[in-house]
Every structure is written in C-alpha cells, then in structure tokens.
C-alpha cells in the first residue's frame, strides 16, 4: 500500500461530512524549519539544527542509561539493589559538563543575535502597521501607502468550494521590495498587539501600539514569500497573512511609479461630483474590507460586542456625528479611527451604511461626499 493511499484515507472516511474540507495536497514531510532566503535566516537555521542535534545527543545518552537500567536492573535480574546514593565526583561532572555544553550553544547564538540587532537605516524603509485584521505598509521615502488584506474567499474558509494552493496565505496587495537592497521595517500597531512574522527572512517582531520596533532584511533571490500574524489579536488573528514580493530593482522602480500615479488619480476622484449610487457601489467594497468583520454583512453587528449599524440613529440621522466616529474612533471601545482611509473611501463607506439595510428609508437618507470629509479635516476655529 503506497503512502499515497494513506494520504487520502482521511478524505475517504470523512468525505461525506466535509466535501471540500480536505486538502488537495498532503504534506507529511513538513517536519522541520525551512532554510530561509537571507544570510541571517540561514544562520538561524544552522543554529536551530546545531542545538537540535545537541539536544538529541543529550537525550540519547540520558535515555540509553535509563533504558539500560530498565532492561538490566529489574527485580528479576537484580533482586538486591545496590546501596550507593551519592558520588561527589560524578555529581560535579554532571554539573560542569552541561554548563560547558551551554556555553558552546550560547556563543554562536549571541553572535547571530548581535548581527540581527542592526538599527542602521535601510535603502528602503517601510513602516508596517498592524490593524484588526490587516496590515498597512507605508514606504517612507516614496510616500506610498496601502493596506494588505486576506484575499482568500470566505467560501473556501467555509468549505463550500475547494481550497486554493495558497489558502489563507494570499493577500489583495503584496509588499514589494527590491532584491539585494537593505530593507528596514518599522513595525507598530494601531489597536492591539500583532506580530509580523516572515519565516523566510527569520523576522518576527511584535507590532505594539505606541511603540516602533525595527527589523531589517536583505533578500537576494526574487520571489514571493509568505508569513503570518503571530500574536493573538482577536477574532481574525488567523486571517491576516503577510506576503512579500521581492523583485529586481528595475521592476521595483516601475512598481513605485505605478503606485504614485494611482495616488494622483485618487486625489482627482476627491474633487469629482459624486452621485449616491456611485458612492454606494464604491462604499460596499470598502465596507467589505474594513467593517464587515465586526459590523457584519447585514449591518447587525454582534450583540454585546459590536453595535448594529442597521437602524442606528447615528447612521440614519446624525451625519456629522457619523463622520466624527469614523475619523476619531470611539474612546474605550473597539471602534478605532479610520482616518487613514482616503476621503473617497470614507465618504463612500459612510454613504453605503446610510443607504443600506433600510437606513435611508427610516432616516434622513443624506449622503456624504468626499468634500464633507475634507471639510471635517480642516482646522476648526
């Protein structure tokens, strides 16, 4: 019977229950850490293997003696136990020898750690901000800013359609960095603590509100690398992956230009005349990315934790208050400021909530246009 058979065995047993739940590919050999793609991550891998084998050796020695006793010193074979119960030389030896082994492990570990701790600025500096439950990337030199959200279909998560190759490891917009350049990440968070982990670079840094942690990398090999959030950050902790695309410098420059062009287009949109219909259409997608996790698709929220928007007096009748909540957040509650969204996005999403779920019919039905947000942002006298 081949290994293949066993791989599919669970699928055969449970297929009536979970039609699409089973993975299409199996990975019995995903047993160890993988080598990284940077000097540091390879060094970390070597260090991991070194301490692993030292631990295995210690285990083999200790357990061999023990198993030998269990075999040779049973009551049957050795009816009268020996009477020794101390041996100072032996005891000193097994205190000192482990100590020396520890030093042998600590020296390379400390050296690698010193290399990792390098605070110098990079050729490219990117601010990484954790949000519930997405990542924001700000390229400090080029003034590029965007969010990166999970792009896996909800239907895959709910086992309604087969899962794709990069299930839960794919995003709508990847972080792009140039190959062969030192890239520094400045990592922080906007709400709770997150942690930015990219195994291939051996970077794991907590993203903490009020703090900026740094980490750096230099990747020579272009490619797409996938990582995850590793600090429990609430409901969708498992659903905010990280994807970094490493490209050659030329391609990187091209990407930077495209992003800048897109930013200019966005600015033009702010001044355009918007109809309610256009705003609602645009707002729906903004809502799906930013609001739906808490307030739900039907606008009902989750009783006791996340308030309903459907039928809310603020959403139906108090346009100014509505803008204020999105811009400032709600003190002491999970609702954060969303002022980092563009004026167009903010106006669209507010209008969407004011026009949906019967809110327009039961309330004043007013829409919010990007100019309202621009006005709100102007200094107040």
């Amino acid at each position, binding site marked *: 019977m081949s290994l293949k058979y066993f791989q599919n065995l669970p699928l055969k047993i449970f297929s009536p229950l979970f039609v699409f739940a089973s993975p299409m590919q199996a990975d019995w050999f995903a047993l160890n850490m993988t080598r990284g793609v940077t000097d540091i991550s390879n060094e970390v891998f070597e260090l991991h293997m070194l301490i692993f084998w030292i631990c295995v050796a210690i285990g083999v020695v*200790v357990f061999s003696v023990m198993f030998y006793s269990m075999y040779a010193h049973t009551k049957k074979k050795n009816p009268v136990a020996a009477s020794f119960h101390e041996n100072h030389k032996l*005891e000193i030896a097994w205190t000192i020898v482990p100590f020396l082994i520890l030093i042998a492990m600590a020296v390379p570990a400390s050296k690698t750690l010193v290399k990792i701790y390098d605070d110098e600025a990079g050729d490219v500096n990117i601010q990484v901000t954790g949000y519930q439950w997405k990542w924001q990337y700000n390229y400090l030199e080029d003034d590029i800013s965007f969010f990166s959200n999970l792009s896996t279909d909800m239907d895959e998560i709910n086992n309604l359609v087969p899962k794709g190759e990069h299930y839960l490891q794919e995003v709508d917009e990847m972080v792009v960095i140039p190959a062969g350049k030192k890239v520094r990440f400045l990592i922080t968070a906007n709400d709770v603590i997150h942690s930015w982990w990219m195994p291939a670079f051996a970077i794991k840094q907590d993203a903490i509100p009020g703090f900026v942690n740094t980490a750096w990398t230099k990747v020579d090999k272009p490619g797409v690398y996938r990582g995850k959030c590793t600090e429990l950050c609430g409901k969708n902790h498992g659903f905010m992956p990280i994807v970094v695309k490493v490209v050659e410098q030329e391609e990187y420059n091209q990407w930077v230009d495209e992003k800048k062009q897109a930013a200019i287009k966005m600015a033009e949109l702010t001044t355009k005349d918007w109809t309610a219909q256009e705003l609602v259409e645009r707002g729906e997608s903004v809502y799906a990315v930013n609001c739906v996790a808490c307030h739900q698709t039907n606008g009902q929220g989750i009783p*006791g934790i996340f308030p309903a928007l459907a039928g809310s007096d603020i959403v139906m009748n108090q346009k100014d208050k509505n803008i204020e909540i999105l811009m400032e957040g709600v003190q002491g509650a999970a609702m954060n400021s969303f002022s980092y969204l563009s004026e167009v996005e903010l106006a669209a999403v507010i209008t969407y909530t004011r026009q949906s779920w019967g809110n327009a019919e039961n309330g004043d039905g007013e829409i919010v246009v990007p100019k309202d947000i621009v006005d709100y942002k102007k200094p107040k006298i």
Partner: protein
Amino acid sequence: MSAVIENHHDDHHHGPAKGLTRWLYTTNHKDIGTLYLWFSFAMFLIGGAMALVIRAELFQPGMQIVEPEFYNQMITLHGLIMIFGGVMPAFVGLANWLVPMMIGAPDMALPRMNNLSFWILPFAFFILLSSLFMEGGAPNFGWTFYAPLSTTYAPPSVTFFIFSVHIMGASSIMGAINVVVTIMNMRAPGVTLMKMPLFVWSWLITAYLLIAVMPVLAGAVTMMLMDIHFGTSFFNAAGGGDPVLFQHIFWFFGHPEVYIMILPAFGIVSHIIETFSRKQLFGYSSMVWAMLSIAILSFVVWAHHMFTVGLPLAAELFFMWATMLIAVPTGVKVFNWVATMFKGSLTFETPMLFAIAFVVLFTIGGLSGLMLAIVPADFQYHDTYFVVAHFHYVLVPGAIFSIMAAVYYWIPKWSGNMYDERLGKLHFWLSFIGVNVTFFPQHFIGLAGMPRRYPDYALQFADWNMVSSVGAFLFGVSQILFLFIVLKTVMGGKKATDQVWEGARGLEWTVASPAPYHTFTTPPKVD
C-alpha cells in the same frame, strides 16, 4: 478517595460528620485534600472537553465546528481552567493529604483557613464559566490576556474574569501560607529540614513561589480593572501607558507559575522512583539545592517569553543566558533519577510507569525549552505550535502524569484498597500513546510555520494536525477509564497493607491503610 473512613473507626477521637455538612464544614486535611482532588478532576474534564473542541476544529483546514470568536474563548478558558483549576488544586490536594502525614503532624496548621481556601474555588470557577453565557461571550484573549486586547478590546465579561482570578489568587495564597506554616512549625521531633521527604521540600519551595507571585498577578488584573473602569492608562499607549509593561508584570508572575506547576511533580516522582527501584534516592541534597536554584532562577528569566517585543540587545542576551542556566539544575535532577534507577531492583507498577514516562517526556519538553531559550532561533519558534508542543510536554506528561502517578501510588493509603493493576497499566499505555500522538506532531507543525491560537490554517499543516486531533481524542477518552479505576478502588478491591509498596519509605507508610481520620495526634519518633 471519598470513602476513606466509613468502615474504619479505630480512633478514640470523633470521626467525620455525616452527610453534606462533613464536606462543607470540614477542617480535616484528608477531607480537604479529597475535595481538592475531586474538584481538580472535574476541572480537568471540563478543560479537556474544551481542548477537544479546539482539536475538533483543527482536525481539518477550514472552519467547521465553531466560529473564530468562540474558538478564542475556548483556548482562553482551556488554559485558565487547566492551570488554575486542574493542575494547581490537584497539587494543593496532594499537599493536604501528604504533607502532615509525611512530617508526622496531626493536621495542617491552619485548618479553618484550609476550608476557606478550598471552598472559595468553586465560586471562582463558577464565575469564570458563567461568562460563557454572558453577552459578548467569555474572555477571548488567551490565558496570557495581553493588554490592550484584554482591556480596551475585551468583551464585558472581562470584569468577571478579573474577579475570578482574584478569588483563585486568594485561594492559592491561603493554601501556600498554610503549607509553609505547617512545614515550619509542625514537623515531628527529629524531622530536620534536610531529612524532610522531597515532596515536602518541593511544596515548601512552591509555597514560597506562590506567596511571591500571586500578588503580582493580582496587581496585574487590578491595573486592568482600573484601565477598563476607572479611566487609568497603565497599559494604554494613547493615554501615556505601556502595553509591554503588562507583559513584564504578567511574566514576572508567569514564569515562577510555570515552576509552581512542576516542582511538586519533582517531589512526587522522586518518591516513586525511589520506591520502585528499591534503592535510596541518589543525591538527596543536590535534589534540594537543584529545586532551590530553579526557584530562584525563575525570578530572573521572565522576559524569555517576550523575546519578540523589541527588548534591547543587552536584555535579550541576559535573559537568554539566565534561561539557559536553568538547564543545569534541571539536568542534575534528571541525572539523579536515572542514577537512582541504575543498579536498582526495578518493578514497573502503574505509578512507576507514569514516573518513568514523566522523566523521559519531561526531559523532551525541557530540551525543547532549551531550544526556545536561544533568541535567534526563538524568533522562528515564538508563538508557533513548537511552543505549544513544548509547554504541553512539560505540563501534560509532566505535571499531569505526576499527579496520576501520585494517585496510583498513594490511593491504597487513602482508600485502604489496591487499584486494579491491569486497568492501571491500560490507562497508562493509552495515556502515553495519546499524549505523544497529540503533542509530538505539534513540534513538526510549529517548525513548519503554523502559529498558535489559529482557528484555521494553511494546507501544508493539514496532515499532522489531523494526527494530533486523533491523539487528543484518544487521550481524552482514556481519562474516563481513570475515573472508573479511581471509583472502583474507592468502592472496594483488594485490601492494601500498611506498607503498601515493598520499597516505600516515609512516615505515611507507618500508619494504617486507609489512613485513620486523625493521624499522629502524638508525634512519631524519628531518628
């Protein structure tokens, strides 16, 4: 365990009261020990059921059984219940039963406080569990409850959680004070400190750790309470506070807490290995010094739980080296156990099987702990399933196996009846296989890159997660057998002799089996 006395009124003192009030009003260390043990077993089953919900959800990728929100409540309650409701009360129960008998004392020093420290516990866990039915659900921020997820972003039930942690803390502190006072004042003449049984030593050290760190935990949750309800900003960066401060305080409690859950196990295992090797324990005084060193070091290693929060280089180096140092006294203990078995005259009754499994599997957990201490490597291990595998190896086949070993070892003394050896061995083998099938693959899953506390995962982790879930159900179901064996023993069976085990040493084996309701009303003579 509960039928200790019914047929055994050989004492001229009064026996236990009848009915429910016996248990409500009791100040008898044996009754209270029994209460603690049954309570912890109930919590073990509840916490275990939650673990099975977690493993069922992780059986395959995709969300099948629970919502991510409820999943987070399960991981939180599972951790809190197993630690504060399962392992800790079990050890306090064993201390109650055994410490007075081992030092030749008639009872615990503070019997009324003993009653109080037990009877507030059910209320603490009632409050904690009732939060499952509150609006917004139970605490969902992990048993480590990092702020601000546990403050600004927490469900309203967090206030009840804080209250229940306070009650658990009060219970632990009272229990610990009782143990210290008993050991310090009530040893029979001739029981000098360096002649105390190792279980007593281990509990003396544990009790000091508890007294030192439970107030720190109380401080942490009180600061949370202030942040949530009284407008302070201890942990709120926007108000000038510091979320990392929470982690420093929490782990200053948390790391000694880890040893609180393993030191009594060291004591238990030392007795059992000595007994079934029929040979005096190797290196008694080095065992004591090793436990003391471990306890002292536990106060200077807390930040190894926080290597990724952005500590300065000097701090990372210090905490790495200090943590590695713990391997030395821990190694000494393991070597001593092996040397005790060496050239002994071994038999493998159920307690010995659990004790040997403890030494092997705890050592594996200790070695993975050493790997986790290496900071650059920890950047890859931190908050992955490798950590989950590590601490379950030291807690399940570590702490919990030692508790099971203790029950098998002393239940003949408690109940007067021998347990069924065949069933005991079956229970051992099922548990042993179950625990390894559950937790060994989690090393693979973690190294391959799956973070902990994920309700759903990428496809490359699917196979070993499935194996792990199968193991968890095997382990879980096996514990029903444990319940059955204990009940069967309590209700009847082959009568135990006073000595019970051929190689057993210590005062508890000099009293009748079952131990009379009152023992050592006059102190025994010890040379």
